[in-house]
């Protein structure tokens, strides 16, 4: 998996060990306290499935689940999440063992370039857990923080609806 790297620059004095629980495993990073959770995942843990589209909380590409809640990982610092349970796209499902939502995204062609996709899937996972969305309109409203420049929106909504139905009928 990813290389556990350490910040080597000016802030080496400020660099501190941080332990994050990511996808069920404790991972130790040595980072400056101002490293965002997003950069921590991508650049220090090699978990590049979480994407950076804006670094400003404006696109949703960096969405991950922290204690089951969807957040923009570019808007928060890694050090703030010691002790929390972090789940990224790599922890949702893997090739050969896809999560139903991932399969639904493939079946509905809910992506093109795929860059917004991990964020959409993490966000949809959080959305389904929230249990707030009942209709396609509500899905659209509550997924509006996740931009897709390829314009796969109708297929994304269809995939989420499908996964919601499957989740409801599951025993």
């Amino acid at each position: 998996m990813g290389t556990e790297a350490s910040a080597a620059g000016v802030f080496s004095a400020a660099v501190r060990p941080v332990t994050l629980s990511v996808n069920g495993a404790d991972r130790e990073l040595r980072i400056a306290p101002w490293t965002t959770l997003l950069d921590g995942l991508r650049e220090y843990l090699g978990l590049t499935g979480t994407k950076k589209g804006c670094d400003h909380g404006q696109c949703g590409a960096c969405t991950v689940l922290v204690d089951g809640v969807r957040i923009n990982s570019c808007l928060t610092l890694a050090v703030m999440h010691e002790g929390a349970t972090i789940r990224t796209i790599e922890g949702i499902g893997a090739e050969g063992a896809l999560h139903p939502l991932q399969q639904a995204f493939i079946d509905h062609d809910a992506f093109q370039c795929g860059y917004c996709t991990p964020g959409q899937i993490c966000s949809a996972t959080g959305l389904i857990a929230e249990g707030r969305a009942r209709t396609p309109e509500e899905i659209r409203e509550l997924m509006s923080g996740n931009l897709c420049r390829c314009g796969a929106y109708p297929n994304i909504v269809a995939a989420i609806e499908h996964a919601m139905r499957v989740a409801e009928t599951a025993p």
Partner: protein
Amino acid sequence: MSMTYLGKAVSRVDGPAKVTGAARYAGEFPVPELTYGVVVSSTIARGKITRIDSAAALGVPGVVQVFTHENRPHTAYLNRSWRDEVAPPGAPFRPLYDAEIHFSAQPVALVVAEDFETARYAASLVRVEYEQGPHTTDLERERGTAYVPPKKRNGIAPPPDPRGNAVEALAAAPRKIARQYVSPFEHHNPMEPFATTVLWQDAGRLTVFDKTQGVQNVQSYITSVFGLKAANVQVISPFVGGAFGSGLRPQYQVFLAVMAATELERSVRVTLTRQQMFSFSYRPNTIQAISLGARPDGKLLALTHEAIGNTSQHEDYQETVVNWSGLLYGAENASFIYKLVKTDWASPADMRAPGATLGVFAIETAIDELAYELSLDPLALRLANYTERDENDGKPFTSKELRACYQQGAERFGWSKRNPAPRSMTEGRELIGWGMATGAWEALHMKAAARATLRAGPMLEVASATADIGTGTYTIMAQIAAETLGVPIEAVSVKLGDSSLPKSPIEGGSWTAASIGAAVQAACETVRGKLFKLARGLENSPLANADIEHVEFADGTIRLPGDPSRSVPIDRALAAAGTEALEAEETVGPGLISSRRFSRNTHSAVFAEVRVDEELGIARVTRVVNAVAAGRILNLKTGGSQVMGGVVMGIGMALHEETMPDHALGRFMNHNLAEYHIPVHADIPAAIEVIFVEEHDPEVSPLGVKGLGEIGIVGTAAAIGNAIYHATGKRVRDLPITIDKLL
């Protein structure tokens, strides 16, 4: 012949990699001992750097180097060396070349450090002093300086020749309109920012992971700019997080990353910020004027279409804007003008259906306006002026099923139930409007190569240096290969986005499916021929006196249809011949005679419904039907998505997208995704319906494919604008149609 994969709704073969986060994009390749480069951008639009002070940045522990124009390495001298495959005429921008500032947010320094946080911080310490020059960024103010570009851009058709006498015909026409349309700057804003990771290896070998639509274009740019050997530069780009034309030309981050890597003899990654994504490549700001003269029954007598677009000071960026009206409508008297205005912005770049989105927006709005002027149904007016040949040059089309698009789209949408009067349809406090427009794009076939390798298993690999920017190239290559050799699609692996693979043009212009598709098919057919020879030559071969015309390749076998006993498994043929692999590389180009004899285009009819809340000025698109004639559709799923994505971007163009310049500063103000609005989930109706109209066209390309990447956006903005007029009675001629223009 019945098909197993071609023409079916096949799921993306790269889907599992994309939904699991396993797909790696340019800025994500793991590289040992990587350094990070952060770009410092100019704060003025024009002038000179008088002093640049890197001392504070260099003093930060962990900073490796700060590159500026003062210490950059030697690069090529001639403009020619900087011109990439799709460069317009002129002198390409050279990053860190000298003290001159040509546009706001131009890169002026690259700070390289051991980690990203340090590089970002140190970049904030670089002090740059400027001598500011006067800048001109305002197209409207400068329109008097518009000129006809003296040198044509390669591959861009100049405006058509005039026909008849448009001035006289307009003056004499019983009914006429003359209108002006304006479109703003738009930025591509793919979700993935531009990024390059350069892996530096001993002996100066570079592996360049780049976000690009053309790995070989980037490779030749790097070798010619830095004087490197092609054998030492490999460019790799297996996944591209959207591009829409912004990745056709090498962007400055690849220059900076390669420069730093070769100078430092280290691996380097440079990723642009979203703000910096607004510092290059955009759809130009345009002003268009259209005059139409017609008989009361709708027959067009005269048409003039003039467009002015902005370009940079250093290049004459050109696109095909005005030709579309001449292509679509057969007015006997017509004239066309296309001019540029120099501005102190970076050069514009091709953005999804470049030129056509703008020109078709103007003509299709004007036709709607004329329909109201004549009290005719907008669709009927179009049909009254329908052309069976390309009116610009008199050539026949390889095929044109636009009439069927109109008919099927209208039927599906329910156009016949439309009350033509503006403001006639309401529900609650919302006004409902129905509008329609035509779309057209080119159906090009470019010369391209592909390789096919068949091994026991059977396992089939097909490879070409093309790209998949979300368009579905991986999938259609796999489909064509599986179909041609009769193996399951799971047995096919596809390689692309690597400069060492067989030659491919940049991925653009909607030509990839037709061009790479033809090359893949040809390579697989050659392998098929070789394989058949092996199978027939086996001892006691059940196919001994069979002819390749009469066998089928299916289920991993070669067999006689209807006689299952006469079949040879691929593996057996390979094994018996002691052949480990059968391989073929083929290059296929367009038929030159056919190119000269025919016009080749895709067409569409777009129907849109909007709902406008007049009190709030909010316009929502609630329904779109887009009927497309694009020859053979290779994959209904990915093809449908292509058109749908185009429609979504067209909705953005109609209602949201606009990069706003501050002309006092010569700078874009809304250079972020919160203020540069692109459609979000809530803006997009579930009901975007794509109809593929049947169009049989063996002439246009070997597979009969025309391409789908651009056609979906063309016409969409006009259909929405026309629907808004129908809803409100307000005609908005400058995009986007925002609240302030509707209140």
